[in-house]
């Protein structure tokens, strides 16, 4: 187990190396550059050249990459061109927002998706079954940003039940020791701050939950249907066990194995894929910041954030694999 984890972590090094090269080439081939973002269309060629020089963008690409790698080895991701702050600082400040959003979305998707998928399987062929399969299909078809706009328009702007943008109301003067706003509110006993942060999470959480919800409904349904037909469920019935024990111990436990894997994968995807939702809701996480960094051609931010996201994605997947081997005794990681 320990060797498995170490090997996977070592494998991360060449992956990141390759990714950094791809990123570097891709970014520098994008039309325009930070100077355009800073100066707009008006800047004179001299001014543009000067900015490029001051950012070191006039050197050959290989030199630039060499400098980037040298700093990276010292765990320094450079400074944001637009905010002039360290990329790592920006990340540490914004990542908690995305984590909170992802957790909210997964809680919604798991809390509703799994029970619904389970019921659909138990009553396969019923109206509930058809409705949940149809609904989950719809969930995967609707583009996230469309859903996000609709939710915002209806529940925030029209009905006014939820706030439309941000992570916390600006009138609340909360302290943020960890940048996890909900956690901060609880730690500092500023209950209203925590409640307000949760309030801000609901609509973007719902929007972000749509795809994992749809996927979980279908995976749970398929998995439960498969397990219900297994011989060991018949054995459990032949023992005369109560329906409750048969369901919990024999059906659900086994049916949850593939569901657990997909929960891990979906979480990884959400962590890295909240860009659209965060943008619509002006929710300050890494997604929104990345979106701005792209329009600003903020190379250090783009490089640093994407590499960090790759690291986190790998770590989440590693955690999934390890925990999977803990739930399923047949799987032994080597």
């Amino acid at each position: 187990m320990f060797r498995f984890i170490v090997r996977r972590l070592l494998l991360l090094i060449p992956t990141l190396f390759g990714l950094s090269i791809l990123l570097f080439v891709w970014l520098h081939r994008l039309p325009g550059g930070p100077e355009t973002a800073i100066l707009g269309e008006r800047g004179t060629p001299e001014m543009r050249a000067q900015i490029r020089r001051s950012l070191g963008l006039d050197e050959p690409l290989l030199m630039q990459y060499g400098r980037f790698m040298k700093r990276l080895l010292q765990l320094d991701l450079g400074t944001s061109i637009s905010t002039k702050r360290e990329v790592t600082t920006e990340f540490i400040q914004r990542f908690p927002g995305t984590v909170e959003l992802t957790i909210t979305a997964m809680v919604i998707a798991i809390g509703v998706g799994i029970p619904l998928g389970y019921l659909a399987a138990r009553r396969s062929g019923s109206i509930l079954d058809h409705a949940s399969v149809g609904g989950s299909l719809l969930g995967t078809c609707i583009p996230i940003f469309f859903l996000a706009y609709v939710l915002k328009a209806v529940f925030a702007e029209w009905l006014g039940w939820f706030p439309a943008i941000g992570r916390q109301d600006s009138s609340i003067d909360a302290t943020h020791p960890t940048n996890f706003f909900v956690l901060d509110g609880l730690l500092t006993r500023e209950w209203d701050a925590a409640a307000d942060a949760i309030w801000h999470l609901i609509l973007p959480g719902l929007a972000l939950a749509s795809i994992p919800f749809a996927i979980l409904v279908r995976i749970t349904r398929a998995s439960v249907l498969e397990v219900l037909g297994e011989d060991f469920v018949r054995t459990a019935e032949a023992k005369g066990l109560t329906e409750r024990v048969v369901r919990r111990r024999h059906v659900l436990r086994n049916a949850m194995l593939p569901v657990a894997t997909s929960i891990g994968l979906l979480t990884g995807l959400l962590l890295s894929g909240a860009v659209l939702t965060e943008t619509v809701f002006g929710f300050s996480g890494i997604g929104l910041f990345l979106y701005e960094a792209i329009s600003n051609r903020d190379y250090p931010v783009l490089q640093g954030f994407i590499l960090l996201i790759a690291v986190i994605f790998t770590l989440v997947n590693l955690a999934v694999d390890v925990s999977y081997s803990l739930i399923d005794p047949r799987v032994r990681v080597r």
Partner: protein
Amino acid sequence: MALLDVEDLSVTFRRRGQRTVHAVDGVSFSVDAGEVVALVGESGCGKSVTSLALMGLLPRRGAQVGGSANFDGTELLALDQRSMRDIRGKDVAMIFQDPLSSLNPVIPIGIQVTEVLVRHRGMSGDAARKEAANLLDRVGIPDPRRRLKEYPHQLSGGMRQRALIAIAVACQPRLLIADEPTTALDVTIQAQILELLKELVRDSNTALIMITHDLGVVAGMCDMINVLYAGRVVESARRKELFAAPRHPYTVGLLRSIPRLDVGRGEKLTPIRGSVRDVLPWSEGCAFAPRCDRRIDASIGEPPPMVPTHTGHSYRCVNPVPVEEKA
């Protein structure tokens, strides 16, 4: 009165968009306490469906059950789910064909044994674990304490089947149904498992319904043998009589297809020609007629009745094999 009396049991599968299947079509047999009764027949003849019907384990949708199954005064086929759950695993227990898929892969063997003890014998905690270890020991699993903590994939095929047997006998059932318990196992292991079953039912006076497609399996352990074909009993006799003087051509065919050590006399292994799919519906004559060498005009037209003899031997054939012409 017998412990179990099955009268005219029938199971019909009806599914929208699918052909109606008469899987079991009027099967009758009885089992006395401590008796070993065999249901023998080729795959697809309705053996498993018969046993699942007795256990109340047929799919709730699409399966229609008729007839009666009287278990010590209780009509099994009329019981509601709740009462059936009280009987299953306690008074009537079952062992299945494939020991690997019949055990839950993600739960230790121990829990799979103790859960029946908890359910039916009101045991808990240490007492249940202790009894589970005793049970594993009784079915010949070495080092039972360690095995309790292991998972099914860590046991060999024979050990898994022993564990399933331990689960089945955990509550000292009065009736045990074994559905092809050795089919998935190696020949040497087969013999051991059969020996174990024989011993267990002898010691505890448990009645056993032994289901198999192989007459060889029951040659050494049965009191009564019922041969099934296409959902009906075609021959029923005490073991010795059936082996000595089979009357139904299908039974003769089954006997000829047993591999035997004393084949030296030029007798060859001959499988029955044709396949189970070449059946006639029973309503139009003998279902075996299309594959039968002794078929006569009377075989076709109306269903052959069960012919009783004075020795309790009965067969469903209009042109039975003469007694002298031994198989």
